[in-house]
């Protein structure tokens, strides 16, 4: 009888004040939330987060003429690269190696085709896929050079890299949540929750889980797909090895202590078989939630370390 009363008392830790701001960076809305009792200090932390997101955007936006990546794609080499661009490209090459090419930063042209809803004729896809798999990078402290014909897209790296940099800046505090457009999330602790955990919801699957002090990375097709004339599902997730735009899963979410590579890994896992995902996550120490099967008839797989609540 007294259980709800006990639960109520336990759960009432009191609401801890927070500062929250949402701004548009890297083609998405980024939400930053910092808990605490000092409004000035919280706002300083928010400003630090948005400063990093701005720097990363300036380095990695492939469409903006002022960005370093735009110059690199256009001029094929740049001198004196920023720390941000250099590190992101190094991460991208590492992710490509780790996933045996299922994540590939040289898919900018393929991505552009799908983003512009161009008719995906087989020859163009084949040509761009060949370019993506036959382009490489030379990175030194003084310069970066593209060898090959493909352009670079850092979509799977930039947000994760940004939240990893934000975490370094947030070493002095515990209560925060950084959501870089759902694909890359950084969680500290939620001070007004009894366990310090945040509740995360995969809205399409009506699935909720709890987590704290972790990075969460997600790739998925959600509403971002359509069907071509032959009723093939087309999404923004590309298999760089085959040029296919139809991934094997609806979404892949991973939880772990590596922020920068997480989004690239989940992008790659969208085209991995379930057994390979399990092995990959075990090797890299990630927890996973994979939504598979046809849309409207999904099967959810998750590792034992995910604290599912619904």
């Amino acid at each position, binding site marked *: *009888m007294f259980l*709800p009363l006990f*639960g109520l008392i336990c759960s009432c830790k009191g609401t801890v004040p927070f500062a929250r701001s*949402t701004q548009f960076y890297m083609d998405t809305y980024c939400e930053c939330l910092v808990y605490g009792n000092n409004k000035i200090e919280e706002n300083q932390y928010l400003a630090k987060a948005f400063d990093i997101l701005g720097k990363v955007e300036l380095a990695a936006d492939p469409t903006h003429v002022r960005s370093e990546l735009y110059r690199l794609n256009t001029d094929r080499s740049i001198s004196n690269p920023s720390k941000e661009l250099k590190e992101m490209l190094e991460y991208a090459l590492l992710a490509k190696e780790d996933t045996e090419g299922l994540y590939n930063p040289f898919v900018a042209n393929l991505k552009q085709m799908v983003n512009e*809803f161009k008719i995906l004729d087989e020859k163009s896809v084949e040509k761009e896929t060949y370019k993506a798999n036959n382009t490489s990078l030379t990175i030194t402290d003084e310069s970066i050079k593209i060898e090959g014909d493909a352009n670079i897209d850092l979509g799977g790296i930039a947000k994760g890299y940004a939240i990893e940099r934000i975490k370094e800046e947030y070493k002095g505090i515990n209560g925060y949540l950084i959501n870089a457009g*759902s694909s890359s999330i950084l969680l500290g602790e939620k001070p007004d929750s009894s366990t310090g955990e945040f*509740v995360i919801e995969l809205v399409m699957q009506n699935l*909720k889980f709890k987590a704290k002090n972790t990075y969460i990375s*997600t790739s998925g097709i959600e509403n971002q797909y359509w069907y071509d004339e032959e009723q093939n599902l087309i999404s923004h997730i590309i298999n760089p090895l085959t040029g296919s735009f139809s991934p094997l899963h609806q979404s892949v979410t991973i939880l772990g202590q590596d922020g920068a590579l997480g989004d690239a890994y989940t992008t790659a896992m969208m085209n991995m078989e379930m057994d390979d995902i399990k092995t990959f996550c075990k090797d890299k120490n990630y927890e996973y939630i994979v939504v598979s099967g046809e849309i409207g008839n999904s099967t959810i797989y998750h590792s034992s370390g995910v604290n599912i609540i619904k």
Partner: protein
Amino acid sequence: MKFFSFLRKRWIDVLVIFILVIATSLSFVFVYSPKEKKNMNADILLENEILCNIDLSKGEEKEIEIEGLYTKMVIAYKLNSICVKESGCPSKFCVKTGWISEEGRSIICLHNHVVVRINGEASSDVII
């Protein structure tokens, strides 16, 4: 008579039990009762600036046209629900999201930098 004599002797115990029963009942009501959707309203934001606020609790069924960053959009709303009905964006992902009716939920049109957000505390901290 025995009952009243018992009450007189143990009135403190009875009072404590009575208070606990009342408190427990109230906690049941507080914990399990569904939250009322009072004054549900939605903001429409362009580049993070509020374009307009819509009262969803009146039950009006209306459509409004707004200018997104690149194209026009039509927002439809009815009692406690709102959706993007039309958008000139290439993907139409915002339209595909359909109606939303929970506090804290939002529809984002990345192409037009438009957010349609039902104000209030969401039941989840992060929605993916």
